[in-house]
């Protein structure tokens, strides 16, 4: 056990701290996905308008998200805003902002795709019945797009959970950072801790993500 560094995990509250760190990752992901769904619905619908200005801005927005590594966005929000606006954002908040920015773009693109596939006459018959835009949105659009959003949302949650590992680089104490701390603290007592601890961190991320992705595959099969 010593040779593989696993003994460190059974010491004191180490395992507990690792799990708490995992919870931080989950928390950030879930909050960000929730925000992304709401904002995504709004922006996605906006994208279906014919307004050319909106079209250009949203194209740029989507391309930025497609092309910029999340790490860069984290740096910009965390280090940049302090400089430019003088704000002092907490690392975790910066993470939620960046993840929501990212998630909203993906959701918006999906919502737009779902919206243009809804046949035009559904809008027309709803309008003919006297429904206004908001009502049409709530009663016609959302139920139909929700079905498409759910598999992607689940997929996005897993990707976000994995991406939360990056936030240790801006100081958030999530599971990987906790792992580092444990290894540091046990430098002399357990020199091989790095192997066991990182293996366990891998396992923890796997346990967090795999069931969700299996569930998503199950849903896909059930609904298609």
């Amino acid at each position, binding site marked *: 056990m010593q040779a*593989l*560094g696993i003994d460190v995990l059974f010491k004191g509250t180490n395992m507990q701290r690792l799990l708490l760190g995992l919870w931080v990752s989950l928390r950030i992901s879930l909050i960000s996905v929730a925000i992304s769904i709401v904002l995504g619905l709004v922006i996605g619908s906006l994208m279906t308008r014919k307004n050319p200005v909106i079209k250009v801005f949203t194209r740029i927005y989507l*391309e930025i998200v*497609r*092309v*910029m*590594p*999340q*790490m*860069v966005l984290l*740096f*910009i929000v965390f*280090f*940049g805003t*302090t*400089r*430019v606006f003088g704000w002092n954002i907490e690392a975790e908040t910066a993470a939620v902002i960046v993840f929501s920015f990212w998630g909203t773009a993906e959701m918006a693109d999906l919502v737009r795709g779902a919206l243009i596939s809804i046949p035009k006459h559904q809008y027309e018959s709803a309008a003919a019945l006297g429904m206004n835009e908001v009502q049409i949105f709530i009663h016609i659009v959302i139920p139909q797009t929700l079905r498409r959003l759910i598999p992607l949302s689940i997929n996005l949650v*897993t990707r976000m959970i*994995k*991406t*939360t*590992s*990056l936030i*240790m*680089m801006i100081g958030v104490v999530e599971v*990987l950072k906790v*792992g580092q701390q444990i*290894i540091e603290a046990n430098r002399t007592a357990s*020199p*091989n801790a*790095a*192997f*066991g*601890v*990182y*293996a366990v*961190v*891998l396992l923890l*991320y*796997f346990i967090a*993500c*795999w069931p969700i*992705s299996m569930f998503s595959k199950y849903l896909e099969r059930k609904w298609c």
Partner: protein
Amino acid sequence: MNFEVMRSYLPLYIEAMKLTLKIGWIGIVLSVIIGFACAVARHYRIPVIGRIVGVYIELFRNTPLLVQLFFLYFGLPKLGLDINAEVCGALGLALLGGAYMAEAFRSGFEAVEPIQTESALSLGLSPVQTVVHVVLPQAFSVSVPAFVANIIFLLKETSVFSAISLMDLMFTAKDLIGLYYKTIECLTLLVIFYLIILLPVSILGSIVERKVRYAGFGD
């Protein structure tokens, strides 16, 4: 925004970009090879190897690159396996990318109907000839969107290399900010350089995707 300062940082960023590109593309090319081999093993259900590949794919698709790199770079040496940072980076990217590429290629294979294979076999083609001349060309066009998306994803993932002390773009930016506090200039350059790495790939990818889609073979 101080342009003089930015110009003075340019050489550092260029060096960093070269490193990112070098390790990144080596990793990507390896991942395509690994991914293709895995897809063949999975699709043709090669005994034993097929199952091992399945486990590998699930493991690497459900864990973050950063943690994989930490394990390779800090964990393995404890067992006596010392790998240098650059090799770690390329290896980590190759293993992660391989899992994603495997799925992209496999969906390509699965899109080719079995009866196409049967029709080739009835003409007397050997299994290998059938895969090379009939299955692969058709599988390829289906895989292209996922393939392009994976390349973009992998190039973005290179941004974690700084965590194992590789002097890539993120490392350079963080370092310079720490030393001289020219945050805006450093971040601007960071964004520009990643755009240089990724925009061409994104645009080229879209072009290829569109070409392949319109070449569509269906009845």
